[in-house]
């Protein structure tokens, strides 16, 4: 078997809570993502999905175990990693053009060339004409496009996405999912896409990994053998889609219930 692009081996991550106790976000997690594979990670709220991405990106280091990206252990924020955040992470004081050009500028490319590349990416994500706008003047969907361009301009070999479309309305979301697949098929980066939406996961991914309610560990891994290129809006009606959905949902349901019971206990 070839070396996986991204690999987590027996990873445990503990955080110190403000009260001084240790909180275990992930326990003994194993995960491998192949080269150029689109892997979706689903799980109930608070199961450590975002922590997984933070570990792969190098923003956080594991308490135990090993995280390998491109075959090498992660020690700091990697150069080849792109990360699309759940909340808005574009810089509010920069115009769309400056926002998208930020990555190349940080990496020492001169302004002219960085802006040229930024214009190209702005066109690719469908924001042409909005170069001079500030983020607060854009809609949520347009800000997400800007964030996507900002990440993809660095041509990451490993693309991490943390519920990127969860704040969007359903129509915009379907549109963005299709566009993401298109952009991805041109780059063939290895993707880890975190979501709590099982439909989104199946529609986009080659493989779906279900994580248990926190502390998170892998509950099951499922292949999605739907043909590409896919149309996210239509793929949901295929019988194969429903079959996979049911199979995964059986596993996921238990975890969602556990997480739900727990949150009820906290409230009461």
């Amino acid at each position, binding site marked *: 078997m070839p070396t996986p692009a991204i690999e987590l081996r027996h990873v445990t991550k503990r955080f110190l809570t403000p009260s001084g106790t240790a909180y275990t976000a992930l326990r003994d997690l194993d995960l491998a993502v192949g080269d150029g594979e689109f892997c979706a990670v689903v799980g109930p709220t608070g199961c450590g999905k975002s922590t997984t991405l933070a570990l792969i*990106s190098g*923003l956080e280091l594991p308490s135990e175990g090993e995280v390998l990206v491109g075959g090498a252990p992660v020690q700091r*924020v990697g*150069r080849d*990693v*792109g*990360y699309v*955040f759940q*909340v*808005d*992470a*574009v*810089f*509010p*004081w*920069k*115009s769309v053009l400056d926002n998208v050009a*930020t*990555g190349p500028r*940080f*990496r020492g490319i001169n302004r002219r060339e960085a802006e040229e590349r930024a214009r190209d990416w702005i066109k690719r994500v469908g924001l042409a004409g909005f170069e001079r706008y*500030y*983020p*607060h003047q854009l809609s949520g969907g347009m800000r997400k496009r800007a964030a996507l361009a*900002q*990440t993809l301009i*660095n041509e990451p070999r490993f693309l991490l996405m943390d519920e990127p479309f969860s704040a969007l309305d359903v129509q915009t979301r379907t549109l963005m999912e299709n566009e993401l697949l298109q952009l991805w098929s041109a780059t063939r980066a290895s993707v880890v896409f975190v979501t709590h939406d099982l439909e989104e996961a199946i529609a986009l991914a080659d493989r779906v990994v279900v994580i248990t309610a926190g502390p998170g560990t892998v509950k099951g891994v499922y292949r999605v053998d739907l043909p590409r290129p896919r149309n996210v809006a239509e793929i949901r009606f295929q019988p194969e889609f429903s079959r996979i959905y049911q199979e995964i949902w059986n596993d996921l349901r238990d975890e969602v219930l556990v997480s739900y019971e727990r949150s009820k206990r906290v409230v009461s």
Partner: protein
Amino acid sequence: MLLLGVWEIGTMKDATHPDGFWIDPFFYGRPSSIANQLWTWAQNGTAQGPLWLQVATTLEEAALGFLIGVGLGVVFGVALGRVRLLADVFAPYIKALNAMPRIVLGSIFILTIGYNIWSKVALAVVLVFFVVFFNAFQGVREVDRVLIANARILGAKERQLSTDVIFPSALSWILASLHTSFGFALVGAVVGEYLGAYQGIGLMISTAQGTFNPSGVFAAMFILAVVALSAEVALTWLENRLIKWRPNTVTADARI
């Protein structure tokens, strides 16, 4: 206007009311004599020299104190906000200095630096520094964690984090403090002059007080108000230029 009218009429004198109708003009002055005083100053100059020189002196002291204080405040605020160790080391000293009524330093500055403008500048710097420092410090601490994470992923080095993320993000906090701090710079300049100077509006007030001339005190206050308002307008203009990326809903209203 009503207040001015009542004040003017209340301080009118005639044979039966040598101390004015209701208000004694000897202590409270009267609007017409204040205007008169302003006119005299503008025409003939003040006891210390021409009026424009007094205004220019005070303004120079306040502006220098403001610029130096803001510069130091921003540098220290950002540095201590960024580096935990520095914050832990300096925090007790800064808190102790801040707790002190810093106006009393004015006397020390007059003694050590002398009657020239630099003793007033020093007092203004001390007053301005803390306002800006605490705002800059807080602004740095409040920077959105996600923005920092995003910048690091995009390839920012530590220095780029400071210049491209943390400083612009803290800028709205810093700018908000500028309104308050220019007021403090004026306080520093005027109080410094009041304590001892060759020129300036503070000295005019002190002289007027010494010669039982309430109109002179009020007239000098009027000049100060005009100076402060002009500075406020200039700062608001600067603020709007520097953070034009911000949606207009955020408070841009005057803080004096």
